[in-house]
């Protein structure tokens, strides 16, 4: 299974159509954000055009964009941390401890994700109202953690089960208790799984629209609600919408670049031999 130059070329070649397909709509959004409405509909489609900044200017002046950006960031980071902590603990619990009915309970975890969101909006609203959490970061974080958690738990169970139990036993013989073993020994091994869980939880919160609309008012409103306001049914403001979408994408890209160095193999190798 030696990586030969020929295989490198074939791999590259196979990726070309996929990358084109993935990137064309992104390219379309990115360029639309710098185009006038007329240039957008020009035929043939303009690949070269004189860029304008009006769309960005409109978005940044007409909407308190930075405040909503802060809201989105706070809620997304809160959701990520919350669902990682609860998901790591529960995922590890399911992977390492069997008890009567544990499979049924694990299935029930999944069931909480099966109902259509639109049906749950009203009960959530009433619940948050009772708890006094409407239009607060905490209310949104609670809702989004509950959306992300079933996946986080199920995914991490898979990664934890693949960790050889001998490694943990060795650590516990060396005097670590279970929790320390989990944090110091197991988590570094499953780092790629944690990255996926983190990106997923972040995006659940970052992109969610319906609950953000219903559960938040002036204070905690997040970006998708604002952007949806630009995609009115009659005449979508394509340019401004695109400008907002580009600005909304940037934090995600930064986060993923920061996290992707943990997406590497090789940690188990030393662990087993050592």
């Amino acid at each position, binding site marked *: 299974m030696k990586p030969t130059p020929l295989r490198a070329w074939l791999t590259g070649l196979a990726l070309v159509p996929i990358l084109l397909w993935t990137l064309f709509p992104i390219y379309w959004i990115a360029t639309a954000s710098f185009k006038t409405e007329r240039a957008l509909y020009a035929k043939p489609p303009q690949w070269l055009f004189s860029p304008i900044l009006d769309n960005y200017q409109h978005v940044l002046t007409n909407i308190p964009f930075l405040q909503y950006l802060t809201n989105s960031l706070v809620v997304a980071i809160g959701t990520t941390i919350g669902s990682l902590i609860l998901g790591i603990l529960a995922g590890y619990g399911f992977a390492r401890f069997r008890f009567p009915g544990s499979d049924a309970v694990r299935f029930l975890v999944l069931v909480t994700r099966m109902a259509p969101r639109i049906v749950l909006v009203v009960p959530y609203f009433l619940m948050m109202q009772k708890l006094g959490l409407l239009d607060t970061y905490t209310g949104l974080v609670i809702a989004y953690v509950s959306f992300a958690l079933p996946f986080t738990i199920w995914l991490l169970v898979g990664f934890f089960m693949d960790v050889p139990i001998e490694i943990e036993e060795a650590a516990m013989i060396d005097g670590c208790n279970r929790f320390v073993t989990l944090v110091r020994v197991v988590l570094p091994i499953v780092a790629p799984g944690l990255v996926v869980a983190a990106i997923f939880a972040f995006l659940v919160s970052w992109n969610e629209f319906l609950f953000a609309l219903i559960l938040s008012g002036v204070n905690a409103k997040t970006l998708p609600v604002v952007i949806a306001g630009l*995609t009115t049914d009659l005449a979508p403001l394509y340019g401004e919408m695109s400008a907002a979408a580009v600005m*909304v994408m940037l934090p995600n890209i930064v986060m993923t670049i920061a996290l992707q160095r943990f997406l590497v193999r090789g940690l188990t190798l030393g662990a087993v031999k050592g």
Partner: protein
Amino acid sequence: MGTRGGRGFLLPGLLFLFAIDLVPLVYSAWLSLYDWWLLRPRSIPFVGLGNYARLATDPELQRAVVVTGLFTAGSVTVEFLAGLGLALLFSQPFRFLRPLRVVLLLPLFVVPVVGATMWRMIFHPDAGPLNYYLSLAGLGRPAWLSDPTLALVSITLVDAWRTIPFMFLVMYAGIEVLPAELFEAASVDGASRWQAFRHITVPLLTYIMLVAVLIRGMDAFRELDIIYVLTGGGPGTATQVIQMLSYRVFGLGHMGLANALGMITLALVALLCYFLMRAILRPQTRGSAA
């Protein structure tokens, strides 16, 4: 290993999840037993299973179940195969693949409503760039969103565009944590790449693949944003999935019926997941016992 210590790990997450999610679910199930209209707040008669009886014979729902099934099966199959293929490609040790990983993930970062709105423009029969280039190539101007069959294909394509990165990411991470020694040993023993894939990667990755398919399947079954923006369920009822139907019922303010539809969705998804899990996990446990 004892079950005692497990409690401390499991309880925080489970208590949170069940407290936050099961309460609304039970509440919604209870609402589904009433003939509750938002515009008629004074009289909310208890009708038992009346809403369900009404839905059981509703041809529109039957049609929606078929459409939802087609959409879910189609999109999950495409996304799973493409995601797995990409994960395998990217698990090769080539330098130039590293920066491309982030590029491949970009569609995940586009707010779903915006992505769908842009695709609607790309698909536009006259003004869209897709048909412009197709007609230059002499392939005509397909009515991507207004031909009944093509509309279903189009929403599947857009869903695939948005979700292949997710499938890729999950399975790629799953492959990355597989112990490298296994592959080295197999290669020393003269196993071909196919054999290594079939006998090492697939069995060890089964659970992760199952999770990816389950989560994606559940989300595809309940997809609304993309379909709402692209076709609104049309033309006619060609792309009217169950969620689109319950959105419309919800919009009419018939809360009892909307909640009954929600419960039916939940039951269908639960059944689907249950059988999928049994089908996939059975052979695996048999294999590991042998």
